């Protein structure tokens, strides 16, 4: 009986000491760090072209252009590539805008005097430059690796993308109508209307970057 009493006295004493110990910073950090979860490297939502190229089973991963297995390091490299492509997207986007402004000056001159071959040549040359700059801008957006986050909420970037569909269609229409007008199959006014409409939407899509909502 006495032995049991001694045993319990000792155990109870030790237990009391242990529960009365100070809470240390390490204890707090242990609590905080116990909830670590592996982050998702790809967003749930991404552009169809990005999913096709950079998705978990995307083309680039199949052909070995991008790592098959996503790791923090490989995804960080993809984000760096995305940043570079984004900078090119911005630069060529502004070049395309400059080209459109140039066409806005050259176009009316050509309407006034259709026989001025210098203006016609310049109009064609600037059109080619604008198309190349525009195409590069679109390629950089469509073929870039996906961002880390892509929330469902509608924001100015989503509007920017929606407008891109409109001005992309406008660019195709402007080019087709230019060919047809040149061949005398349609009135030039339709080419001009498509070009002006495209320019307006394109400029508005640049402005959306500044507007936050």
């Amino acid at each position, binding site marked *: 009986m006495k032995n049991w009493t001694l045993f319990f006295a000792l*155990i*109870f*004493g030790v237990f009391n000491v242990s529960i009365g110990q100070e809470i240390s*910073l390490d204890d*707090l*950090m242990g609590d905080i760090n116990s909830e670590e979860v592996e982050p998702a490297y790809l967003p749930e939502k991404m552009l169809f072209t990005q999913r096709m190229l950079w998705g978990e089973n995307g083309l680039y991963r199949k052909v070995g252009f991008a790592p098959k297995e996503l790791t923090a390091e490989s995804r960080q490299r993809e984000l760096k590539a995305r940043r570079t492509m984004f900078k090119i997207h*911005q630069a060529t986007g502004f070049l395309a805008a400059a080209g459109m402004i140039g066409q806005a000056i050259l176009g009316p001159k050509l309407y006034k005097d259709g026989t001025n071959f210098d203006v016609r040549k310049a109009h064609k040359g600037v059109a080619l430059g604008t198309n190349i700059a525009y195409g590069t801008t679109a390629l950089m957006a469509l073929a870039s690796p996906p*961002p880390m*986050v892509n929330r469902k909420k509608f924001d100015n970037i989503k509007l920017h993308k929606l407008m891109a569909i409109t001005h992309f269609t406008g660019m195709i229409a402007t080019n087709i109508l230019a060919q047809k007008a040149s061949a005398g199959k349609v009135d030039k006014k339709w080419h001009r209307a498509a070009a002006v409409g495209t320019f307006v939407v394109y400029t508005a899509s640049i402005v959306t970057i500044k507007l936050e909502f």
Partner: protein
Amino acid sequence: MKKSILALGVILCLGSFVSNMPVKKKVIADTGSSTFMYALHHPLHSFEAVSKNFNGIGVYNEDSKKMEIIAVKVAVNSFDSGNSNRDSHVIETVEALKYPNVTFTAEELSYVGDKVTAKGKLVFHGQTKPFTVVGVQKLSKSVLSISGDFDVNMTDFGVEPPSLMGMSTDEEIKVSFNFKFKI
């Protein structure tokens, strides 16, 4: 021998009851009512980003009604500025895949009235630096709140300010917080 063991048990019991009464307790910030955000200034527009995925935990002394230790951890990818592209850019800039969290820990908390100064360490972008945060403590019946703001110079932690349209943001990240602990 038996008497010695008995004496030891009694001493341990009494000692622990007298010197370590549970006046200090662990308190956890309620993420539902607490706020944690940062603001960045860019020449085109300034913005704020809010996180709801952070851990704030501390040791509260019920006798002195003061916090004695505090630890806060926030996941970089949890901030929402209302623009996915921008948040993604920030994640990339601060290499959040490599360094997913920002933590602040302090064991040296001093009070002057309701103003609390926490001297500790800030871990950001994988770099640890001594850091001081000043806040204001308010105590109600069952909630202790600490609020305040501070600036972090991102270049001090090896982070290049993110840029848009060829223009960089300010180097200063303006952080503000309001932690509410149930006591």
